[in-house]
């Protein structure tokens, strides 16, 4: 019996469907009279229970009676009056969705957000409001409607002399993707060409001659001393890792017994000569590394020429295509330098270092105008320079960079849950620059690039308080604050307006259209939730409409009708889900 007491108590809150009772039969009568003249009479139904009022209680009673009659067969049907043939109901036109964003009663806030979004980039927006008031959806919708001037794209190139630096180059908007693709293709071609050139006869012969040159220069440096030594009967014998000086007589190194027999004066003379020559030879041998160093410079020049020969043809065409844009030409020059430098130092590794990294739209992703951040972390926000599956440097742009000159919508509770991310974001807001992070195992410091996007922070009071506590004074980066109300006075939100907003909400979420009879029910429910004011909680309304849509779907209805909403409300009162 508690069930019935609760039900009656809840029914008091449920709006009465008087209008539906009055309107639907009238409409049905008219439609039926119109049809009766044109269509043949319908067969008489086998049941005598006709539900004209779609009340939940009535439905249950009818079901119970019918069940008892069919199963037990003991209760006779008493109402044997002739039943009118069922008439196909003609559904009224659904409520027209509002053309405005579906947030009810937030006209001032909406206007304020619109103004803020149209302000210059860098003036970020804070939208405050209770959860469920549709802040995120409103921000996404308004941001998508707002036109922004496109900002420059950016690409990174690893510098030639500072391999730990990724230098940023501004590229006119929309050209970075194509440019990076072209540059990568050029580098791939150049890598193949470089390998081919280094395996060519020409390169091999050049290298062989260079080796021969080193040998020649080394021997030549010693040759003069050798000649002078031989003229003084001192032998200079080349050995594996150096030279040997020894006295010589008639073309042969003197044996010790022969040397012993020499006069003392001659011995001293020979020793003095050898000591002098030893000093000279040592000084020459000490300069041999310089000879090798000079030769290595020649080797580097040779490889440099080979690398230039490999990459120039591709880049010349690219430069020709962008000769009017100095920033692109500078980026191409940097890629050329990086390719050449890395080729001279590491062969194939050179192509990796020369690989340009697209900042805004890597791997073919188009830059998005509105980016809603679903996962918050410093890497997600700022991006990262790491390595791809092939081991090449790769840049994964962060959400702030992906948005380009558009909008980045972030929910404050996510930031409050990850203070590191909030610190990273507040640093970006303060400096107005984005600096991608260096991935694990890499020491590449990327140049910062300007923050062109506007950050829209969605917050409620507690989350915002937490963020302010973590970074005091961060509010100055949000000059535009829009506050969404959770409830408004009845006068500010008439039933018609509310129902149109609800229809927009249903339309946006692909629900069935709302029958006009729904309006008073949902309005009354909103007033009940608002405690005498109209609740503006979109989430609660959306859940109700979704439940009602499910009920309507079970009944094969094309619209959400009052009975569906009523049943949904009843389900909610029961704590059930359809």
């Amino acid at each position, binding site marked *: 019996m508690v069930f019935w007491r609760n039900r009656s108590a809840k029914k008091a809150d449920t709006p009465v469907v008087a209008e539906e009772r009055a309107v639907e039969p009238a409409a049905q009568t008219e439609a039926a009279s119109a049809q009766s003249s044109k269509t043949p009479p319908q067969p008489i139904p086998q049941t005598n229970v006709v539900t004209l009022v779609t009340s939940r209680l009535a439905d249950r009673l009818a079901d119970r009676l019918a069940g008892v009659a069919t199963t037990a067969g003991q209760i006779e049907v008493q109402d044997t009056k002739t039943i009118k043939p069922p008439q196909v109901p003609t559904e009224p036109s659904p409520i027209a969705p509002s053309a405005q964003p579906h947030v009810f009663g937030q006209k001032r806030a909406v206007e304020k957000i619109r103004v803020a979004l149209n302000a210059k980039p860098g003036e970020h927006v804070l939208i405050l409001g209770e959860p469920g008031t549709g802040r995120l959806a409103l921000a996404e919708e308004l941001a998508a409607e707002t036109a922004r001037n496109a900002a420059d794209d950016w690409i990174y190139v690893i510098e030639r002399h500072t391999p730990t630096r990724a230098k940023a180059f501004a590229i006119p908007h929309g050209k970075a993707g194509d440019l990076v693709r072209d540059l990568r293709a050029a580098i791939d071609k150049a890598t193949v060409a470089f390998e081919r050139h280094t395996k060519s*006869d*020409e390169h091999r*012969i050049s290298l*062989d*001659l260079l*080796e*021969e040159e080193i*040998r*020649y220069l*080394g*021997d*030549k440096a010693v*040759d003069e001393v050798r000649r002078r030594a031989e003229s003084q009967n001192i*032998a200079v*014998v*080349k*050995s*594996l*890792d*150096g*030279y*040997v*000086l*020894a*006295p010589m007589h*008639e*073309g*042969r*190194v*003197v*044996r*010790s*017994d022969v*040397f*012993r027999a020499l006069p003392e004066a001659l*011995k001293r003379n*020979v*020793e003095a000569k*050898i*000591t002098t020559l*030893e000093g000279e*030879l*040592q000084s020459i*041998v000490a300069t*041999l590394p310089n000879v090798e160093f000079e030769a290595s410079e020649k080797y580097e020049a040779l490889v440099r020429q080979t690398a230039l020969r490999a990459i120039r043809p591709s880049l010349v065409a690219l430069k020709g295509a962008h000769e009017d844009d100095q920033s692109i030409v500078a980026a191409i020059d940097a890629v050329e330098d990086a390719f050449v430098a890395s080729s001279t130092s590491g062969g194939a590794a050179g192509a990796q270092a020369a690989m340009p990294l697209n900042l805004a739209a890597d791997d073919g992703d188009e830059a998005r105008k509105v980016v809603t951040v679903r996962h918050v972390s410093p890497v997600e926000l700022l991006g990262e320079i790491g390595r791809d599956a092939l081991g090449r440097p790769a840049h994964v742009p962060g959400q702030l960079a992906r948005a380009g000159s558009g909008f980045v919508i972030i929910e404050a509770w996510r930031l409050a849950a990850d203070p590191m991310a909030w610190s990273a974001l507040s640093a970006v807001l303060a400096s107005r620059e984005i600096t991608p992070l260096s991935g694990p195992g890499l020491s590449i410091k990327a140049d910062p690039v300007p923050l062109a996007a506007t950050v829209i922070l969605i917050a409620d009071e507690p989350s915002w308080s937490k963020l302010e506590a973590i970074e005091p004074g961060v509010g100055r980066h949000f000059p535009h604050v829009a506050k969404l109300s959770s409830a408004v006075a009845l006068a500010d939100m008439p039933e018609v307006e509310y129902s149109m907003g609800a229809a927009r909400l249903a339309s946006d979420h692909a629900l069935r259209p709302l029958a006009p009879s729904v309006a008073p029910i949902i309005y009354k429910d909103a007033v009940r939730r608002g405690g005498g004011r109209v609740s503006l909680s979109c989430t609660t309304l959306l859940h109700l409409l979704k439940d009602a849509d499910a009920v309507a779907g079970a009944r094969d209805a094309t619209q959400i009708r009052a009975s569906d909403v009523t049943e949904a409300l009843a389900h909610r009162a029961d704590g059930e889900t359809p």
Partner: protein
Amino acid sequence: MITHVAEASELSGRVVLWLDPESRCTPTVLEAPLRLARAYDAEIETIVVDQRADESGEVPFRRIGHVSLPDVPPVAYRFQLLAQRCRRTVEDAGRTHKVKVRHALAQGDAVDRISEMCLMRGPWNIVALTGTPAVGGQSVINSLLANVSGATGFLLCGDALKNRKTGVVVIVEDGERLPSMLRAAERLSLPGAAIHLVIGAETAAEHADLEHQARLLTADALPVVFAPIGPTFGVPGAMTEIVARMKPSFVVARFGGTAVADGRELSRASAAIQAPILLVR
């Protein structure tokens, strides 16, 4: 001249292989003199010229640029070990190629000792050098040619006999030497393989003249291919580069010609061509 080699090959020809134990002595390097010896049914006589000094006595003996380790073996001992290793390598290669190998040890000036060796036995000798001296290479060869009437040619051993796309290349610089060079090339070539002739001329007229002579001489002889190469117009190193690009397995050239000119050019040619070069008088 190499002509003598061909004519007298039935008898006692010899390839004198000058081994420098401190330079490279690998089976690949040794393949050229062994191939030459086998081509002429000759034997190989190695010569190691020992210039070692007596470190143990009172002779002032200085090492320069050596690794300053306390246990560096004496130069003489190391020289001995290296010489033994070289000889062993030559013997192994000789067994593989079925060429008889002898060894000789000499002391004193290398050129003098080799000259003496060549004078002692004949009728022909080809001196094979395992490494080309970067400086003074020409003077070594010049001295030998001047002093030794029995030295008929020089072989600069290269180490790239395999995977070569061209067979024996003959650089023709005069018609007079061409028949003997062709005979040598024929012996060095594989059966049925063509001999590639490169006309080493500086001017177009000279080139046409030489080519005409060469075509007359080779009209009804061996399979000969004329490399489509024009005159070098005196560009230094041009012929070296041309021949290096051909990747020959063996090169026969005239010593002191314009193609492989002076000592510096000789070592550059040897480094670039990487194939054995047989230089004839």
